[in-house]
């Protein structure tokens, strides 16, 4: 037992978080900013923040993750970080030459009250921002929300800074991608192309966090949404925003600032959410859903009906982010699995309401919680009380998996100990087949490993 101190008696906690199912805002802001072409994220705080975020993202992607920091010391904390940021902006443009610096704040700079807008304004006034270059800034205090909040704030900041309605409507749809993998971003673009819809996907970390090995390092890889594209989003016909937590803010900003109406859908994970996404695309793009899409859907349904017996009734514990957990849990319910325990450290009242809608009738025994103390320790305690057949979540689940001997599918952030997530999508119908393949793989492996010899099956 590695987690030897976890017992099944749940004691109510109001202050202590143990084994969190979330992390802090700035890493989300950093990830979002990486999805912009030619952008260097900048962490306005102690250099440890930047180091931690880069390390975590690097471990998840096994790819270079570049970002700079204001390197606060005690002095800056007392006198404010303006001098540090101004110097940083100067150095960054001089040495690393990005097109954009995307500054996010930290708990430190927020606590001391640094006004990023004012500082960036001063940098501009002081001529520290070269012609044609940009500094975007977002307030991302670590003590509010979670990493997802930081992502949403940075996405909103870019829209606020760049998108502009010139009153010339462009026949394109904005896609706010939500916190998904580079592979997922590729897949969303592929689906949209299949629908014959011209779109701008933002942010877009494909070709940024899955770059080829070529013998040459490129600090600003070819991927990422371009400035021109983000600007043009203000002239689009419609926005399809994926994920209430990740994308709603930016969608509202686009609506308010540029009068681009939006439709809010879930991140297209699983069957029903992809159905809704495809329908939202169809409405937004004013196109019929082509047969090729229906065929991909049909292949997914085919796998579901073929493999139903291995999925049916399986009890699942999940942890992660609301925008991915909601459609994923719905998918599990769709295919007769029983998502019985769900935690997310990310707060937001909609979580409980929507989970109740999805689970209420079908899985009345389900326990779910988000926000403070909705952590992996609590989930593990629930599991100790009554076990599950499957775990789905980030790498930290491996301790529970090993201690309890429960099959484990890695999904979410961060995945620190396996590869694949960067390359193979889990969104869309095809992505849902991958989710099925992964779940079936571990469930069937378990069956193969534990079946008595006489009932070891050749055909399954």
């Amino acid at each position, binding site marked *: 037992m590695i987690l*030897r101190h976890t017992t099944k008696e749940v004691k109510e*906690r*109001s*202050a*202590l*978080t*143990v*084994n*969190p199912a*979330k*992390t*802090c805002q700035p*890493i989300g802001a950093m990830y979002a900013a990486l999805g912009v072409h030619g952008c260097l994220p900048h962490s306005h*705080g*102690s*250099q*440890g*923040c930047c*180091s*931690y*975020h*880069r*390390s975590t993202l*690097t*471990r998840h992607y096994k*790819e*270079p993750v*570049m*970002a*700079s*920091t204001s*390197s606060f*010391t*005690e*002095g*800056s*904390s007392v006198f404010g970080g303006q001098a*540090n*940021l101004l*110097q940083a*902006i*100067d*150095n*960054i443009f*001089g*040495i690393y030459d990005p097109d954009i610096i995307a500054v996010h704040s930290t*708990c*430190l700079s927020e*606590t*001391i009250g640094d006004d990023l807008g004012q500082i960036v304004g001063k940098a501009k006034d002081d001529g520290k921002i070269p012609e044609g270059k940009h500094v975007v800034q977002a307030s991302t*205090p*670590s*003590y509010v929300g979670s990493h997802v909040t930081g992502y949403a704030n940075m996405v909103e900041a870019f829209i606020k800074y760049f998108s502009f309605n010139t009153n010339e409507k462009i026949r394109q749809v904005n896609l706010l991608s939500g916190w998904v993998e580079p592979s997922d971003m590729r897949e969303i673009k592929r689906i949209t192309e299949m629908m014959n819809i011209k779109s701008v996907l933002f942010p877009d970390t494909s070709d940024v966090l899955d770059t080829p090995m070529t*013998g040459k*390092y490129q600090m600003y890889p070819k991927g990422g949404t371009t400035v021109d594209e983000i600007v043009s989003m203000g002239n689009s016909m419609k926005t399809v925003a994926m994920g209430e937590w990740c994308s709603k803010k930016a969608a509202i900003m686009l609506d308010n600032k540029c009068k681009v109406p939006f439709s809010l859908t879930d991140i297209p994970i699983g069957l029903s959410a992809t159905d809704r996404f495809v329908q939202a695309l169809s409405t937004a793009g004013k196109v019929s859903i082509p047969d090729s899409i229906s065929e991909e859907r049909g292949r997914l349904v085919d796998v579901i009906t073929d493999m139903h017996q291995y999925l049916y009734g399986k009890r699942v514990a999940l942890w992660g982010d609301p925008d991915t957990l909601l459609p994923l849990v719905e998918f599990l319910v769709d295919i007769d699995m029983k998502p019985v325990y769900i935690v997310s*450290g990310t707060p937001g009242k909609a979580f409980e309401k929507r989970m109740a809608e999805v689970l209420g009738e079908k899985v009345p025994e389900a326990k779910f919680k988000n926000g*403070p*103390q909705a952590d992996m320790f609590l989930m593990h305690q629930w599991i100790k009380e009554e076990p599950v057949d499957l775990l789905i979540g980030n790498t*930290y689940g491996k*301790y529970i998996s090993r201690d309890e001997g429960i099959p484990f599918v890695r999904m979410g952030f961060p995945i620190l100990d396996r590869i694949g997530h960067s390359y193979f999508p889990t969104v869309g119908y095809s992505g849902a087949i991958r989710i099925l393949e992964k779940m079936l793989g571990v469930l069937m492996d378990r069956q193969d490993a534990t079946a008595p010899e006489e009932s070891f099956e050749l055909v399954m």
Partner: protein
Amino acid sequence: MPNKKNYTNGLPDPSELKEEILKKYPRKVAKKRAKAMVVNDPSEGQEIMANVRTIPGIITQRGCTYAGCKGVVLGPTRDIINITHGPIGCGFYSWLTRRNQTKPAEGEDNYMPYAFSTDMQDENIVFGGEQKLKTAIREAFEIFKPSAISIFSTCPVGLIGDDVHAVAREMKAELGINIFGFSCEGYRGVSQSAGHHIANNGIFKHVVGNTDRERTGKFQVNLMGEYNIGGDAFEIERIFEECGITLLSTYSGNSTVESFAYSHTADLNMVMCHRSINYIAEMMEEKYGVPWIKVNFIGAESTAKSLRKLADYFGDDELKAKVEEVIEREMVKVKKVAEEVKPKVEGKLAMMFVGGSRAHHYQDLFNELGIKTVSAGYEFAHRDDYEGREVIPNIKIDADTRNIEDLEVTKDEEHFRDDLVTKKTELEKEGYTFKDYQGMMPEMSKNALVVDDVNHWETEKLIDFYKPDIFCAGIKEKYVVQKYGVPLKQLHSYDYGGPYAAFGGAVNFYKEMERMLATNIWKLVDTPWKHEPEIVGSISIEA
């Protein structure tokens, strides 16, 4: 992929490279960085600028004080609940990410796989977080019943005025277990190094000397600055045990606060990572009279040397004989592998930019394979780690350093080991050296480029100039360097391999170098059609 260079006849003068690097910088930055880059000349006492602030905007390897305190020093200790007081991030990022292995006995406490945090919310920032911290401590106590709890302050804590030390005292009184706090806010100091110092202070103040213990062996020592990454400490423990040496406590690989509490009863402190732990060694000598020596268990030869120095300290013939026996037996295994591997990797070039000691220690391992270190530097060291402890009196104390408390330590009359002081004096007469760290630079080649707090731009230029065969650094650097077709070995996490310490570790490292340096996979990087002429389309879809 870069073409490799041959430096068998000595390293080239990198002065031009240095100039080129500096050219890119704004004037003030260039001026500062110039002092942090030294073209080495081991025959002279050269000065390097170290332990100064990283320039804002520069893409540095460095982390923060919290990382040094909680992550590095206290993290590897298993029988204490380490609560991070702050927003969730810091607790999350330092959760199991440093590979400090630990081996509790059945039924023993091990809180290392858990992340404890007060997960501060905005109301805690506005109205203060002390109440939440108290509640968190009570909850932790109620659920886990630990024998000790510590509190780690993150950036906002100091700013909003939470007094974690007062909370600790109050809770200690209330709950009756050892509870103490660290003011290790990320912004203190200029790097992790400040955190080490703060951690050293806290452990010394709140733990060391708390319990006495009957002598359990003839030769009682502590090992300091060894964090059991990838099982290094296990390998050293094995050797000690075979030699008949009693290891009271390791700071802090595979450790317990329980063992820190009686570690002052040792006869000698051995310091591995000078940077992170010399404070405790110093303070223990002042308070208890326990002397310390610098050792190095990275590299088979270094290990042998360190073991012999240890045996010489005790001066016991039986111990000396045992140590020689162990060295001889182990070296047979080591040499066998070295002989297999060396011909495949000899003459390769290495670089290393990491830590406060590894960038130095690992040069020994590379030397054993005939691999030359062309450039190196530390991430968070001080001048003495480069130039040797003799420069300590000359180091200018700047404001950032002054912010870190220097504990005032007085002699503990009851426990002070006058016998050891006498022993030390005698040994010194015979030429035995204590506290004698020479630093990295005197041991490096002429013209090697020594760079403190190396940054991304410099890394790029170094690779371009030297075309190294292997680059040692950390996770943030790994894939950047590898995109150039240069394999990177992480020397923080060992890339999830190891142990590399002592004799068994040397064998592992040799084999790892064989894997990394004798492979053909890097030849796959170029496409076979790279140099083919472009063809103009003929059977194309549009055609």
